[in-house]
């Protein structure tokens, strides 16, 4: 899995997940966002347009991150889920827990 950051003009930190988000690397994402929180970032968009699959541990990591960001007074939203990835969120009802947009631009407009 590769992670890359970009900051939008409105100050939202966009984190792109390239590859798989699974049990073996979920902590990389958690530690990455923790470092960004420590630097003062509070608004996050995680983009999955380049993600292959996510397992239940990856979903769990996102749930834990969303809680952590909320506790810090921030906001974490998701974008770029293809039909298969979105089906995982629907199956597990996590689509009710996360704000999910089709594209980063659409997500940024909701912050």
């Amino acid at each position, binding site marked *: 899995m590769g992670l890359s950051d970009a900051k939008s003009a409105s100050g939202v930190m966009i984190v792109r997940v390239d590859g798989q988000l*699974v*049990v073996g690397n979920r902590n990389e994402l958690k530690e990455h966002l923790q470092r960004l929180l420590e630097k003062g970032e509070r608004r996050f968009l995680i983009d999955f347009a380049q993600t292959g*699959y996510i*397992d239940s541990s990856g*979903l*769990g990591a996102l749930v*834990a991150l969303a809680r952590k960001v909320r506790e810090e007074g921030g906001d974490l939203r998701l974008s770029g889920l293809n039909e298969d990835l979105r089906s995982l969120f629907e199956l*597990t009802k996590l689509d009710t827990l996360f704000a999910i947009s089709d594209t980063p631009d659409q997500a940024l407009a909701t912050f």
Partner: protein
Amino acid sequence: MVQRVALRVPSDVDCIEEAVAVLTRHCLSGAEASPRVQFRLQVALSDALANAIVRGNREDAGKQVYVQVDLHPEAVNIHVTDEGDGFDHASVAEVLDPASLDLPSGRGLFLIRHLVDDVHFNTQGNSICMTLRRQ
């Protein structure tokens, strides 16, 4: 004719992604599987291996996970067996508790049950057999 593929996976979660890639290639070889079937197979395999390594073998480096894939013309049967004591799969609810929605764990078996076409466990509870139609 049924083709059989066997793989031993170390009890290390860092090995799961590569094992899923290797097994997926074998499971879908010679078949025109849809991207959706491939996706379901990858997620189910990843979760089955994670359960076996983390919950079954408790990440004990001295233990292995044994995967056996039987390739039928229309479907694949995948057995994932750990060296743990087993668990009572019936104790795992088939639906998610809405009150547990924001918990970081407890979705693995639920996802497997919904992503593959059939799931069975052995009596001891340390081996899962997943059946997935190839198309």
